[in-house]
Structure formats: C-alpha cells, structure tokens
C-alpha cells in the first residue's frame, strides 16, 4: 500500500519552476511565498566531505578506535596516550635534570652563591613549598598557632641554611633516627609542681617579655631549678635543645595566662614530618634555600 502511495506521490507533477532572477530551478517547496532554489551542493563542500570520510577511515585503522569485548583494537600505528604522556614526562625530567642534578650534588652554600642555581632552586622550592609545607605553615609561610612563622627571625632549631636543611630532611619528632627531638615535662600531669607553683611560674614567664608584670626572686629560683636547664637562666632558650626563647615578642602558642598555665602543666610538642625519603634531595635543598630567603634566614 505504501509503495502505491509513494508511486502516486512521485508521479504528482512537481511545482518546480525556473526562478526568473537566478535562472535556477526551484525545488517546489514554498513557505509564505519564499521558494527554495535547487542549487547543487557547493563542490568544495562535497570534496571536503569526501576527504573527511577518507580521513575518518584511515584514522580508525591507524589509531586505537574500536572497543572489543575484553580489550580494544590497538591500531596499526601502535600509539597510546599513556606512552605520549610518559615520553613527555621523561622529557621534562631530562630538561630539569641539568639543574636538578647540579643541585643534588652541590653543597648549599655553593648553590646560594650561584645566581642561576639559586633562581632555579627558588622557583622549585616555592612550588614544593606550596605542595608539601603550606598545609601547616601557610602559603606565605606565616604559620599558624603551633606551626612556626618562617618569615620572622626566630628559629627554634636554627635558621642557617644547613640547620633549615637538617630540619626539613629529618623532621621534628619525626620517624628518622636523626630527627630533631626534645620533650618538655608536663609539670602538673607528672606531679613535678603544684598548681600554685605553676601559677607563680606563669607570672614569672609573663614577666620575661612584659616589664609591667612583676615576679619574685623565689619564683626565679624555681625557674632556675625546673626550666633553666633547657630555656637557659635568662629564659632566652637554647637551640641545641630546641627550646624557645621566652623573652622575645614572638610565641609559637597563644600567650594569655591560661594558655601558659596549660603549656607548663601539660607540655607541648608539635611534629614535623621527616621529608627524607618522601622528597628527593634536590627538592629538599631547594626548599631550604627558599625558606632561607623568606626574610629570617641566618
């Protein structure tokens, strides 16, 4: 039936005519008086289509294209994006190795006096800092409570290039056997001092950096007995023990009275990871040089 219908349709006289302006036949389609000219497809367009078709076939044969049940058609060219990425990464590593190898084998002082190496180390150090250090120390290295500010001139464990390098390499209270470690006693928990004594000691510690607060010689004696072995008799700290200066304007923790009481009572001890083994030597050296230039380097 449908065939019949189609036949009759085809046999219907078409409304085509020759357009009087262009001399081209119309298709017989008309919309509100606008007639469609039966112009052929532009030849360049047809050729482009044909070329694209040929291209598409060739592409499918040459490159991986068709999914199979358990694998895929790998293509005659044997190309994969993974190989490309791998090759690119190798190329980058090779480009970098010129400087990275030099930094790896050169000592810090020499790197620091070579402008080219320093420039590379600073750029690499900045990137590595953002990736590895910023979560604790902040992107600007300004630190947080309990995480030291690396911009200032206070270094608990030392601020020379080598000391910074050592700290990054082995960490603080880290997993390496050479890690920096100290342990402040928890004077209340370990029942070394009474609450009243801790209260007096707090006043004394406050008086070290605030001249408006007065303490007594008796408490000074107590400080000498309990604290001076690490913090020094003048309370200025000792780097070899990693004990902070109690007299300066900077503190790692909050410095109101209650917090100081809490610190003396229960101790504090932050942890910095051992980066040795997690980062390569060139990166650690770059980090040391970067941190050293933040303003407090010694």
């Amino acid at each position: 039936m449908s065939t019949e219908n189609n036949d009759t349709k085809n046999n219907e006289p078409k409304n085509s005519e020759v357009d009087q302006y262009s001399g081209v036949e119309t298709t017989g389609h008309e919309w509100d008086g606008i007639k469609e000219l039966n112009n052929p497809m532009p030849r360049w367009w047809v050729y482009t289509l044909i070329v694209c078709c040929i291209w598409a076939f060739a592409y499918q044969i040459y490159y991986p294209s068709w999914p199979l049940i358990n694998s895929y058609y790998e293509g005659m060219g044997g190309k994969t994006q993974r190989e490309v990425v791998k090759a690119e990464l190798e190329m980058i590593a090779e480009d970098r190795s010129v400087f990275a190898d030099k930094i790896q084998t050169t000592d810090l002082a020499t790197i620091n006096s070579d402008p080219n190496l320093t420039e590379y180390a600073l750029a690499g150090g900045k990137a590595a800092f953002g990736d590895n250090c910023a979560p604790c120390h902040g992107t600007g290295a300004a630190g947080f409570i309990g995480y030291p500010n690396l911009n200032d001139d206070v270094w608990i464990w030392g601020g020379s290039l080598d000391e910074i390098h050592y700290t990054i390499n082995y960490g603080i209270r880290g997993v390496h056997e050479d890690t920096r470690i100290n342990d402040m006693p928890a004077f209340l928990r370990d029942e070394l001092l009474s609450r009243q004594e801790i209260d007096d000691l707090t006043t004394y510690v406050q008086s070290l950096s605030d001249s408006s607060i007065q303490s007594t010689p008796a408490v000074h004696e107590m400080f000498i007995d309990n604290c001076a072995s690490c913090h020094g008799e003048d309370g200025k700290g000792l780097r070899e023990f990693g004990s902070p200066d109690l007299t300066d304007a900077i503190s790692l923790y909050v410095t109101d009275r209650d917090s100081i009481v809490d610190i003396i009572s229960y101790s504090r001890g932050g942890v910095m990871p051992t980066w040795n083994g997690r980062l390569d030597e060139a990166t650690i050296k770059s980090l040391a040089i970067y941190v050293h230039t933040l303003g407090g380097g010694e």
Partner: protein
Amino acid sequence: MANEQKDANSPKSEEVTNAPQPNIKQAQVEAVNKAVDRPLYASRKKIHPQRVKGKFRTIKWFMMAFTLGIYYIAPWLRWDRGEGIPDQAILIDIAGRRFYFFVIEIWPQEVYYVTGLMIMGGIALFLVTSTAGRMWCGYSCPQTIWTDLFMVVERFFEGERNARIRLDKAPWSLIKLYKRIAKHLSWIIIALMTGGAWVFYFSDAPTLFNQLISNSASFDAYLWISLLASFTYVFGGIAREQVCTYMCPWPRIQAVMMDEETLAVMYRHDRGEPRGPHKKNDPWDGRGDCVSCRQCMVVCPAGIDIRDGLQLECIQCSLCIDACNSIMKKVGRPEGLIAYDSLKNFDRREIGEKNQFRIIRPRTIIYSFILFVVTLIMFFTLLNRSTIDVNILRDRNPLYVQLSSGDIRNGYTVKIMNKSAENQKYSIGIEGLNTFELRAEGITEYNDEGTPIISVTRDKLRSVKIYISIPRDELLSDSKDITFKIHQIGSDTNDIQSTSFKGPKL
C-alpha cells in the same frame, strides 16, 4: 554576444557598429561588476585586465618596486647596538620582548609608542583619503601590489587578455596544463617568498635564512611562512578584487572622509556624453568625446565601468585614466576624459567656472592638525624616554612580619629595568619613615648611609627582594604611606614610587 545586447538598455546605447574609427576597435567587453542591475548575490566572474601603458601605470610600477623593495630588504639591514643585543635594524624580538627600530628600542611596557605610530598612520590615511581619495588602495595597499605582481606572472605565462580568455575556454591540453602549472607554481614561489620575508622581521634574518636552507628552522617559522604564503596565494592569485569588495572594511569607511572636493578617478560625463562610436573625419559637434571603445573596462582590475560613476569596487588605481588618455590621443581629443576630479568640479563646469583643487578645507585642516599634534607628542615622549623603569610589589602574604624584637617588617619586590645602553648602579632610598632598617636580599654592596647599591646590566631587568623593619611605635595606624626613591648613580635620573607599610591593627 547576448550580453552585449542586454547592455543596450541604457539610454546612451553603445551598439556595435561594423565600421567605427578604423584605428579604434570597440572592445567586446562588459563590466563584470557593473553598477546597474547589480544582483544581491552573484558568483564571481573572472576578470581579465589588459596591460596598459601610461603615466599612472609607470607610477604604479615604481610604487610596486619601492614597497616590495622595502618589504624584502628591510629585515636584512644591520644596526650595531653593541655586544649581546641584536644588530638587526628592524626586529620584533618576541622571545626577548623587545622591538628594535634603528635607534629606537621599545620594551613591552612602552607599547604605547606603537599605538601612537598606528594613530599617526591612521590619521595620515584619513588626510590622504580626504584629499585625494583612495590613494592607499590604488598605489600602496599590499593587496593591490601583490595582485599586480601576480598579474605580471599571469601575463607572462598565459599572454594578454584575449589570449587568457581563449585559454580559459579552451579544452584541457598539454600546453594549457603547462601554462596553468607554470603560473600557479610561480605564484606559490612568490607567496612562499612573501611569507619567508615576513618571518625575518621576527628573528635574526641571516641566521634564520641559513636555518631555512638547512631545513632546521623552528616549527613557528614554517607555520608562519605557510600561513602567509597561503594567504598571499589566495588573496593575490584567486580572490583578488573580491578581497577589496567584500572583505576589506576600508571601502566602506573611507566614504565618510570624502567630500565633494575630494579627488577621485572620475569619468567626466559632461564632456564624454553623449557617447558613441566615432568614425574618422566625422565631426565632433553635438556629441561627447567618449568613443565607446571600452578600454577603461578592459584594463579595470575591479571589473567595473568607471562611466557609471563612483563605485564601491573602484580602488582608484587610475589605470583607466591611462587607457582613456591613449585613446584620446589617437582620436585627437584632449586627454583627461577620465581623470582625477572632484564632484564639485562638475558643478563648477556646469556654471562655466574653471576646475579647482581646494586642498585646504576644514576637513584636511583638522586631520593635519591632529596628525601634527600626535607626531609632536610622539617626538616629545620619545626624546624624553626614561632610561629607568621601576615596579614595586609589596608582599601580601604575609602582609607583615613581627620580629622577635617587636619590630614590624614588610617585604617588597623591587623590579628595576635598565633601559639605558650602559650597565648601571642604583641606590634605593626610602622616604616617609623616621627610623628603619633596610636589607636587600642577595646584595652585598651598601653605601655609607646603609642604602643598598644594586647593579643592573644594560638592557636587563633585575628583581630584588627588599626587607624594611621599623620599631613598633613608628606605626601610628595599621598602614603608613612610604616612597621608594630609586636613583641612578652618577646621573640625575630618579624614579619615585609610592607604596605603603603595613602593620597589625592597633
């Protein structure tokens, strides 16, 4: 010849008579882009312009040689700037971020010189256009020059107009194949040389030339050469007048710069009409000087009939003037039936006045004035170009650093550009702080007053980290305005930059 008959619908019909002036043949031609009955859309019809000889053609040959000469030779000129700086007279050094033009050297920050140059070029173009019409299009536009060059090649291989028309109609044969291949191959070679010359402006020309010969140039060079070669080939060989008519905005814009006193290539219809074929020894009374020889249409590269009046397609190449003048000479009439003329002159002649060319008009005065002012500003700024440029970036993270002594420290990155021809030393002074301590990271040289001395190699930028610490009580609020004074030692050149010093909220 049905088309020829159709043209006869104009009142001044140009019927083909069998015996016109014996020495003047009427060309069997119709304007491809005729002004009357123009359809909204039409596919391109090929134009076969005939070669013409005359005054303007000679000027155009000269202009072609001159402009192409500049284009091809300029990148090979050398200019000694000393060790370590390119010695190419004109060089756009993208990798080194410099633009060299003989004595002038421009840094990216000074790109406004290029802007100024472009404004000057633009205004000069306005001035020329308002005075003498599309001089740019007719004589110096690269599209015109290269199309002309490509036509020379075409004529060399395929012959003159009639031979080319015959060749187009002829079936494919070995000789036709040879002519076509030879023509296109020559075009492609010219196109490649065009693109090839272009890249020399962006790299040391002799080095790049050797690289190109040994096929070891960078990918960018090949990319740009092939891009520009394709454009040259398509625009000059194939698209030709289509570029001017459909792609270029200038024909549309220039109309606003022209007025009735502006010169343009025009057919003097008051002298030419009524037109018609003229037999030798016929009287000239009661008829115009136009003998309907159609030479103006035969030579026209835009495919128009100049006698239809001013038209968008007309690039005013003035070849029709040469063609018409040669005919006028033959028939013994004065030259200048087609000539540079202004609309106002048609009115003047109508009331019996003489032709005039008024160059001084409000329009030209304004354009000249703007051009003068812009040129003056450019000269002034170029002569007073500073040899130092300083940028100061204050650290924002951290905003400030508290030191163990209670002092507040701010960090600044100071970038000093030494744009002079010598290595220089600079001192850094701070104003706006009473007591402060200044330290420059990595700088070992300080003067007696404790200011760091920073040496910067010529033509280089140096970035130095500066730390300033001040006592806490120096800060009365959380911010204080300070100024950096960068002084070039041994000169009176200073650069003063304002910034601020931040501290904790009080």
